[in-house]
C-alpha cells in the first residue's frame, strides 16, 4: 500500500515540477515560452494531430512486435543450444561476443542499402538489437541450471533430453523472462531511433516531423506518447512474468 503512495507521489511530484517551471518560464522568459510547453499545451498539441496518433502507434507496435518475436525465437533457441552443449557454446558464443558491442544503429545504414527503406530494415535492426540480451540471459539461465535439480530429475528416471525440457528450461525461466523484458525495452529504444532516421510514419517519425515544423509542443507530445505506450507494454510484460513465475519466492518473502 505505502509502495503505491510513494510511486504515485514521486510521479506526481516530477509532473508538478515540470508544470510549475513552464508557468514560471512563461512569466520570467528564461527561454522562449514555446520551447517549454506546459502539460495542457502538450495535450492540446496531441489533440491537434489526433487523426494520426492511432495509425502511428499501430505501425510502431507492429515493428516492435515483429522485431521482438524474431529476436526472442532466435535468442531463446541459440541460448538453449549454447547453454546445453559445449560444442555449440564454442561455435556460437565467440561470434556473438564480437558482434555484441557494435551499436545496432551502426547497422541501420547497411540494412537500408541491403533491404531498402521499407519495413524490413527497421524490423531487422530491432531484432538485432534485442536479440543479444535475450540470448545471453537464456544461455546463462540454462547453463547454470541448478545441478542438484538436474540430479534429482535423473535419479527419478528422466533421460538427458527429458530433463532439459522438464527441468533445465523451466528453471531458467526467471532469467529468460529478464532477458525478454530487457529485450523488449531495447526493441522499443531502437524503434524510435530507427523511425527518427528512416521512416515516414510511426511515433518516432512524428517527433522528427514536429522538429521540421519547429513545434516543440508536438515533440513533447510525441515523447510522452512513446513513454506511455512503452510503460503500458513493459507493464503488461511484467504482469505476465509475475503470473507465470508465481512459484518463485519473491524479494519480500526471502527476507
Amino acid at each position, binding site marked *: 500500500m505505502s509502495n503505491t503512495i510513494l510511486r504515485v507521489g514521486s510521479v506526481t511530484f516530477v509532473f508538478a515540477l515540470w508544470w510549475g517551471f513552464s508557468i514560471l518560464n512563461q512569466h520570467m522568459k528564461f527561454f522562449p515560452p514555446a520551447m517549454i510547453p506546459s502539460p495542457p499545451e502538450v495535450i492540446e498539441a496531441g489533440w491537434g494531430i489526433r487523426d494520426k496518433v492511432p495509425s502511428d502507434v499501430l505501425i510502431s507496435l507492429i515493428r516492435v512486435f515483429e522485431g521482438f518475436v524474431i529476436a526472442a525465437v532466435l535468442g531463446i533457441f541459440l541460448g538453449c543450444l549454447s547453454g546445453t552443449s559445449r560444442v555449440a557454446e564454442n561455435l556460437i558464443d565467440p561470434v556473438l561476443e564480437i558482434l555484441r558491442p557494435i551499436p545496432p544503429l551502426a547497422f541501420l545504414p547497411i540494412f537500408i542499402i541491403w533491404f531498402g527503406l521499407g519495413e524490413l530494415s527497421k524490423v531487422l535492426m530491432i531484432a538485432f538489437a534485442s536479440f543479444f540480451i535475450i540470448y545471453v540471459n537464456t544461455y546463462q539461465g540454462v547453463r547454470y541450471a541448478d545441478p542438484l535439480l538436474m*540430479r534429482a530429475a535423473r535419479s527419478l528416471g528422466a533421460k538427458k533430453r*527429458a530433463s532439459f525440457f522438464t527441468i533445465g528450461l523451466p528453471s531458467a525461466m526467471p532469467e529468460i523472462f529478464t532477458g525478454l523484458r530487457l529485450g523488449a525495452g531495447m526493441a522499443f529504444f531502437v524503434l524510435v531511433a530507427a523511425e527518427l532516421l528512416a521512416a515516414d510514419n510511426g511515433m518516432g517519425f512524428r517527433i522528427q516531423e514536429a522538429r521540421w515544423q519547429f513545434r516543440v509542443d508536438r515533440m513533447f507530445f510525441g515523447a510522452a506518447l512513446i513513454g506511455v505506450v512503452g510503460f503500458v507494454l513493459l507493464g503488461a510484460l511484467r504482469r505476465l512474468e509475475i503470473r507465470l513465475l*508465481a512459484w518463485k519466492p519473491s524479494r519480500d518473502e526471502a527476507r
Partner: protein
Amino acid sequence: MSVNLTLANVDLEYGSGKERVIALTDVSIQIKAGEFVSIVGPSGCGKSSLMNMVAGFLSCSGGTIKLGNESISGPGADRGVVFQEHALFPWMTVKQNISYGPKVNGWSKKNIDARVAELLDLIGLAGFANAWPKQLSGGMKQRVAIARALANRPEMLLMDEPFAALDAQTRRMLQDELLRIWEKTGTTILFITHSIDEATLLSDRVAVMKANPGEILDVISLNLPRPRDENSNEFLEARRRVSELLKRASNPI
C-alpha cells in the same frame, strides 16, 4: 522387491595429475534387501561420494557396484535419492513434484493419481497437494522430497544427511516418520548422517568410515529391538559402540 546392493573393492579418484584426490579406496559392503544401513564418518571421508556412486551420478574408478546382478551405470528410477537440501522443483506443486518420476517413466494417469494420493496420505500432507514448495516449512519440504523419491517404488532409498538442516524437534519427528515409512514399504535404505544418535536410532547396521583415504573401518550390527527406547541400557550401549569406533576413525593411531 528383494535385491541386494553389493559394493566390491570400490575405489574413487577425483581429478588427475597433480590435482588427483583419492576419495575412496577398497570399499566393500553388502546391503540386504529391506535393510536400513547408516554410514557415519568424519567430514570429507567420502560419504557423499559413495552415495553419489550408488545413485549413478559418479562412476567408480575401480571395483564394482551391483544392484542385484546389474552393474550400476547411471542414475535410474530403481534408486530414489533424498538430498540434504530438499531439491524440490520450485515451479511444480507438491503433487507435480511427487508425480514427476512416474510421469517420466510413462505411468498411466490413473496409476499416477492413485500413487500420488497414497503418498500424500503416507506423509500426511494431503491438504497441500496444490501448494508450491515455497509455501512449505523445511520439514514439510523434506517429507515431500521423500515421497517424491518413493514414487517410482524404487528398490532402495539413498539419503544424504536428509535431516541435517532441520531443527531438533522436526528432525525427531521425521525420524519416526521415516521408520514408519520404511516398515510400511519395506524399501532398502542407505542413510548418511553425522549424528551418532540418529544412526543408532534408525539403523540395522552402521558403517563407520575414516578419511584420508576414505574407507570403511568397520560395520556394526546393532541388534536392537524396535521400537527403540533411547534411554534403555541396550540403546546406550549400542550408541557407545558406534561412538567409540567413530572416535577411532576421527583420530587414527
